[in-house]
């Protein structure tokens, strides 16, 4: 059964130095508040896994939490580069960053294999690209029935997966809807899981297209209203596109990045770029 604890307690218990950590959420429901807590607790040597390591991993990489990044698209969506990621890859700042890169289809299937308890997944992909030359865990495999050559990708098995959801009930059953991404597979593939939620309700009423993760599949649930910001939680908040645009200038320069992290993450009561539920917030209870 999931235990309902504070965000700080959940991260302290489940995200450990040296872990392989997946924080998922495909544009929608990105667990940014949890990412800030990982920075605040100064985790080190993490292998960070995520299909689209946008602002959340740019911050973790710039803050020195990461040793390695496993990903398929590292950009600021609709805006441009991730400057902290590029600084780490191109100039080893603040530390060298080992990378392992895939395609989206490959990463999705790697989670799917992990969730299924299989050592690898099969897809039509990667063939003819330069990716397999540089990326371990991608190999040709011959279909035993047709002889066709396909691609095998190794399963992903994170030590811990962290996601954000709209709601949980008091027993720790988790419910999320809208763009549901790869979160179910990422949670099922992992040894432990942390779910931050917009609110904790007495009972979960049905929602169209919702995914429900039973309490016994989740390690810890933590309340974090607006915890996806600058990403969003459908029916609770809207994507703060202005923040993504602003991040380009904040993150371009090492000094301005560090000032931002100090002010918004390390300062007690720091906002993570937003006064939670304050005047800037578009958060609402549906």
């Amino acid at each position, binding site marked *: 059964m999931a235990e309902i604890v504070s965000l700080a307690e959940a991260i302290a218990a489940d995200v450990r130095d040296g872990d392989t950590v997946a924080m998922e959420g495909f544009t929608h429901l990105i667990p940014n508040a949890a990412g800030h807590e990982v920075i605040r607790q100064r985790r080190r040597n993490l292998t960070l896994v995520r299909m689209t390591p946008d602002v959340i991993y740019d911050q973790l990489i710039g803050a020195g939490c990461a040793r390695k990044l496993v990903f398929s698209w590292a950009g600021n969506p609709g805006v441009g580069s991730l400057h902290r990621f590029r600084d780490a890859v191109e100039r080893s700042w603040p530390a060298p960053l080992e990378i392992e890169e895939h395609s*989206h289809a490959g990463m999705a299937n790697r989670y799917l294999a992990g969730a299924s308890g299989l050592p690898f997944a099969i897809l039509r992909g990667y063939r003819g690209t330069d990716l397999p030359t540089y990326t371990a865990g991608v190999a040709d495999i011959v279909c035993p029935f047709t002889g066709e050559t396909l691609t095998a990708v190794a399963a992903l098995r994170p030590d811990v997966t962290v996601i954000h959801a709209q709601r949980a009930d008091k027993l720790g059953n988790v419910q999320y809807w809208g763009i549901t991404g790869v979160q179910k597979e990422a949670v099922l593939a992992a040894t432990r899981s942390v779910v931050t939620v917009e609110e904790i309700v007495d009972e979960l009423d049905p929602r169209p297209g919702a995914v429900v993760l039973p309490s016994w599949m989740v390690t810890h649930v933590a309340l974090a209203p607006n915890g996806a910001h600058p990403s969003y939680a459908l029916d609770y908040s809207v994507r703060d596109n202005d923040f993504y645009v602003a991040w380009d200038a904040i993150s371009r320069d090492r000094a301005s990045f560090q000032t931002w992290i100090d002010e918004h993450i390390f300062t007690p009561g720091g906002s993570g770029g937003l006064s939670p539920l304050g005047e800037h917030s578009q958060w609402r209870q549906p």
Partner: protein
Amino acid sequence: MEAAVTYTSDEMMTVTAARALQDRMTCFVGIGLPSEAANLARATHAPNLVLIYESGTIGAKPDALPLSIGDGILAETADSVVGVPEIFNYWLQPGRIDVGFLGAAQIDKFGNINTTVIGGDYASPKVRLPGAGGAPEIAAACREVIVVLRQSRRTFVERVDFITSVGFGDGPGARQRLGLTGTGPQRVITDVGVLQPDPTTCELVLTGIYPGGSVADIYARTGWELQVSANLKELAPPSDIELSVLRGLVASMPASKATVVPEPASQGAA
């Protein structure tokens, strides 16, 4: 007083890309220029165009241009929203989608695309780009692919520094040998013209030029010995309607001052 309609080369590119889409097609859309063009087509001549974004939104009908592939408006207006493994495995991989719409940082004469690294070597590149995203499998599996990018010697190169997504590989027969099921890049639409693969050599040749453009200028922007089609056509300029709808869409984007394509040029850090 009658004023001549003026437009930018980027607008001509987007309008040309939109015209390549027909009503009722299914289209896998990347963010940036492809999304502008696909939404322009849906708002003008192709109202039943099915827009599919890799976030899992099938049949999205945004009335404003989204900044990301996962803006709320895409999910709220979609016919169906599916998970990410499903969008790639069930919808893209079996070849159900007519057109894949891609951007690129570099493209070569066989339509191979680089969105991974430029310069240096892989471990310490001069410029680290975002990487593959959904593009390799979109390029492999859509019935056809349209690439939209600005044309210069920096982007149109003899050999890409990294093959992120395969066009025609090393030439005729490569797609078949690799087991790629789609027909590959059938159109490359740029800010100065349109290139299409020669059916025999698979090499991209110039087939379309814009009003007022010159072939000499396009040669100067191409990093290989560009061939020009015997049937080179001058394409019609944007209509008033196309222009006004496009400008409305761009103005509607939540953060319309944003650079919508990742800049290949390194800005350097402090």
